[in-house]
């Protein structure tokens, strides 16, 4: 992959990002920079706006105020033509996989290649096999998503996200609900893509073990703001009681006191504002 033109600057720069859905304030002034080739992990309790933040980066949501810049381009100002070119940079894996359920696994993974690249069908076939191999899926090409287990669907979603070798990978809880071995495997693939191809990676997770494994840096979001950001070793030693509570998974602590959401089970509640009050953006 060629060196990005502005390699000295941040790949992704989020400044003072605010977003509310109706009366509910989800992002309350997020500032965050991601350097080219960096792997940033965002952690935080449920309903703290992590998914919403990710959707702003790729332009699925528009900020109320503030800016999101990718390679120096303001995402919210892109026109219809530019946005196609812009989206080519990204691969995104969604929480539940978000596979197209009318298509086979093969067609799902081939979809971004057909849409975003000029590969021949031979090359597409090879690449699809390669990506499915990376997530250790075999003999599933002709199956429909409904015939797969949740974990397998998630892995297909992961394969689809990385298929066209994007510059930036966004992972929305790539390992939630997977067994520890598969989790370690996915983490390895993320670390490998990040190390070998210098892919900029932005991962949302609840899994602290994963976070420490794949992150060059970990940021914690709470009540719509970034409250801490540090490399893993340092992050572990941060004295902020909210960070410590999250790392160690205590039920009692500052996070539970001021936010009843934080006590709910993460895997069930995460989608909260993003799905319940999805605002219908205008073009």
């Amino acid at each position: 992959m060629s060196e990005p033109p502005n390699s000295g600057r941040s790949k992704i720069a989020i400044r003072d990002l605010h977003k509310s859905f109706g009366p509910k304030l989800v992002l309350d002034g997020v500032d965050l920079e991601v350097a080219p080739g960096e792997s940033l992990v965002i952690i935080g309790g449920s309903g703290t706006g992590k998914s919403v933040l990710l959707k702003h980066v790729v332009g699925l949501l528009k900020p109320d105020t503030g800016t999101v810049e990718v390679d120096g381009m303001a995402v919210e100002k892109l026109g219809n033509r530019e946005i196609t070119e812009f989206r080519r940079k990204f691969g995104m894996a969604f929480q539940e996989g978000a596979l197209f359920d009318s298509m086979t696994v093969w067609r799902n993974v081939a979809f971004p290649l057909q849409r975003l690249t000029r590969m021949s069908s031979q090359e597409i076939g090879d690449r699809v096999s390669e990506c499915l191999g990376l997530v250790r899926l075999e003999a599933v090409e002709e199956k429909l998503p409904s015939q797969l287990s949740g974990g397998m669907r998630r892995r297909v979603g992961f394969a689809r996200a990385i298929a066209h070798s994007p510059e930036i990978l966004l992972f929305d809880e790539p390992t939630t609900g997977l067994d520890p071995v598969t989790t370690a495997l996915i983490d390895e693939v993320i670390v490998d893509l990040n190390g070998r191809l210098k892919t900029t990676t932005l991962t949302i997770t609840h899994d602290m073990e994963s976070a420490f494994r794949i992150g060059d840096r970990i940021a914690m979001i709470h009540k719509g703001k970034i409250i801490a950001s540090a490399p893993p070793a340092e992050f572990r030693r941060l004295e902020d009681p909210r960070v410590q509570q999250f790392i160690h998974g205590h039920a009692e602590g500052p996070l539970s006191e001021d936010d009843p959401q934080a006590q709910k089970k993460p895997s069930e509640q995460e989608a909260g504002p993003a799905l319940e009050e999805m605002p219908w953006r205008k073009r």
Partner: protein
Amino acid sequence: MKLPDAVEGFFLNLGRFFQLMGQIFAWTPRPPYDWSELLRQMVRVGFNSIPVVFLTTLFTGGVMALQTFTVLRRINAESFVGSGVALSMVRELAAVLSGLIVAGRAGSAMGAELGTMRVTEQIDALEVMATDPVHYLVVPRVWATTIMLPLLVVMGNGVGILGGYMVAVVIMDANPVSYVDKSFQFMDVNDLFSGLIKAAVFGFLLAAIGCQQGFYTSGGAEGVGRSTTSAVVVASIAILISDFFLTRLLF
């Protein structure tokens, strides 16, 4: 001043409908043209609706024959049963009934399908992969329905007239030759066209409304249920109201 929720909801829906309509027309001429998807939708919406449209129009034609016979006999005009059945089928009933039936069958399916895609983030996934969901999902569905509904109505016209014929000739002993003769005696091409134009408009409306309801789904499985219901309800009302204005316009 705060508007009541129902009023606000009505205008929100109306605004979204016109916005979606604009997007449909803007995206339609742009490549890539997905002919195979268009064909697939035409089969789903049109071909698969043949049995239910067949039955509906057959029996409606029969009922029309029974009813017009009862009424026309009172004024000694029972020889005009054929004209009554044929004209009402062609001008009005085939189009409206097929529209309502297809709204229940295909419009609801569109609401449910797109709604599920919305709540499972498949629509977001499409956008991330540089694929406009209106272009990819809505455009083929809307045009497939707009093309297929008039074709279903052509069939429905014939079947309805056949239903009337069977009732009149078999049950009520009408003269078959004069029945057929009367059926077409007062009909002209405009009657046929007005029915087909109505059908095309209904097809566009029911598909666009079904897609719109699905597209703006929120709130998980319950939300998909709501979208499916309102796809049928809103489309049916839209068909009946637009029918009035189309009839005024096309007389």
